[in-house]
């Protein structure tokens, strides 16, 4: 049972990341591959606050969001000049740079040694060391993020995002400052990623730079593309599928010495088949 609770917690964290990234990629049509960087900043802020100062989990969460908002504002301003492939490439670059900062800013992030001994949150005496209670906490945050996203998507603001996805110049002619809309949605999604980062840091109680690399951003991107772009429930399904898939493959034992590599082959082939036969994802409506 402990294993299922653990998987549920990972699933909730990655569903939060998926839903928030979907706002930028699925609804606004901007292929951002830097989500793991904001996920990492949220995690590191909580890790450093909880290990180095007496600050509690929730204030570290809030300060994580503040820091991520500032950084995502700067990144967003630079990004607003780009579209399509170039936008994706610039986000590639930012993810690599922020990862390099995690790796090399020794006296802040402890470099590749990572930050161990991150405490679990305390709130009204509930023991969050027990994974089930932590799952409830994570679920609460996810529900908040999910309904905030639904609110955004169903509002006039969300409708303008979709118009930007469809034809940015056309919507601009009707008086909409598309740059500021793109910037705001980028910041909101980054702040949500920071929440997921704080939860991850406090749950695993140890973080190191390698969890926030480009490969992680591509993993989150695969979640929302598989689940279906422009569909929040799709991102949840995508997270469920891509978190459970490697776990299921653990039980499917190929002959021991090549089984791990075989799983990667299966994973790659699934991605290819999906793009061939189901590019809009399981329940998405917007084709990438």
């Amino acid at each position, binding site marked *: 049972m402990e294993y299922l609770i653990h998987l549920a917690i990972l699933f909730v964290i990655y569903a939060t990341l998926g839903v928030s990234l979907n706002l930028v990629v699925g609804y606004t049509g901007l*292929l951002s591959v830097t989500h793991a960087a904001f996920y990492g900043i949220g995690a590191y802020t909580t890790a450093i606050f909880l290990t180095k100062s007496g600050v509690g989990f929730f204030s570290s969460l809030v300060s994580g969001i503040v820091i991520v908002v500032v950084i995502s504002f700067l990144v967003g301003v630079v990004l607003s000049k780009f579209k399509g*492939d*170039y936008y994706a490439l610039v986000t*590639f670059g930012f993810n690599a*740079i922020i990862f*390099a900062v995690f790796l090399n800013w020794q006296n802040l992030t402890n470099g590749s040694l990572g930050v161990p001994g991150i405490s679990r949150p305390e709130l009204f005496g509930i023991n969050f060391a027990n994974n089930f209670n932590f799952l409830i906490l994570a679920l609460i945050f996810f529900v908040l993020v999910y309904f905030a996203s639904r609110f955004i998507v169903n509002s006039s603001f969300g409708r303008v995002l979709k118009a930007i996805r469809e034809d940015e110049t056309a919507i601009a002619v009707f008086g909409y400052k598309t740059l500021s809309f793109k910037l705001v949605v980028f910041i909101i999604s980054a702040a949500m990623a920071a929440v997921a980062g704080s939860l991850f840091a406090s749950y695993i109680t140890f973080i190191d730079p390698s969890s926030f690399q480009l490969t992680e951003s591509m993993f989150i991107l695969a979640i929302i593309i598989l689940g279906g772009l422009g569909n929040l429930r799709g991102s949840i399904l995508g997270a469920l599928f891509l978190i459970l898939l490697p776990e299921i493959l653990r039980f499917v034992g190929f002959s021991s010495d090549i089984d791990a590599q*075989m799983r990667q082959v299966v994973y790659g082939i699934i991605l*290819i088949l999906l793009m061939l036969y189901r590019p809009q994802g399981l329940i998405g409506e917007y084709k990438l």
Partner: protein
Amino acid sequence: MGILPQLILNSIIAGAIYTLVALSFNLIYSTTKFFNLAHGVMAAIGGYAVFYFSKTLGLDIHIAIVLGVILTGFVGFGVDKFIYLQLRKRKASNMVLLVASLGVMTALQAIIAILFSSRFKTLSGNIDTQKIFTILGGVITQTQLVILLSAVLIMAGFVIFLYKTQFGKTVRAISDDEEVARIIGINTNKIIGYIFFIGSAVTGFTGILIGFDVGIEPTMGLSLLLKGVIASIVGGVGNIYGGVLGAFLLGFVENFGIWKISGEWKDAIAFALLIVFLIFRPRGIMNK
């Protein structure tokens, strides 16, 4: 300064390797207009093919190289025919092709690791057979000289091929506008298939050269590709001379960056260069 000649030489060698990757990447990107993440793996395929032919089958090294290059070309041709072409037929967008190429990369890398284990292998014999040359105070090995020569030769080959031959004219027509090219009767899918063959063959050859100079491992593709992509963006995507210029600029900026700052910031410097260019000169140096 005693170090300067060696530093310049190092930058040139790095530039030559990036040139080879940038040239082949530019060729494929200019006609297919999507970031093919699987492009890097072709280098590993080339390297391991030569390893198999020469070390396991014991063929003569030159035959092994020729077979390796041809085999990689066919792998690239096959991937385009069975995956990318089907996606193009389904009017898939760049992002779908990007995710599919992520699947191809993951699967191919894992297959290589299954066949050859993921251990690092070197193609060259032991240390003392390497002839060492000293040019204006800097030291360069025979393999690195071959790398420089092949970078120059292949670039010249590309220029002649693209601007002097009939086939090259059709390729440039496709890169300008694929629809128009199809309308005037060019069988674009066949040409793109050949382009994949040539591009992959050149990358395979690059992998073989790196195999002799340093060595090969299944996961060598992605970092090589990222540097090639940066070089072609900085130089001007789709522009042959741009790719070469961008590659050497990247080689110099990286090596002088290591000299002035320190080794672990090398990748961050490369991406910072990319971001600076994308902000101030998104079209790259050569493109008007």
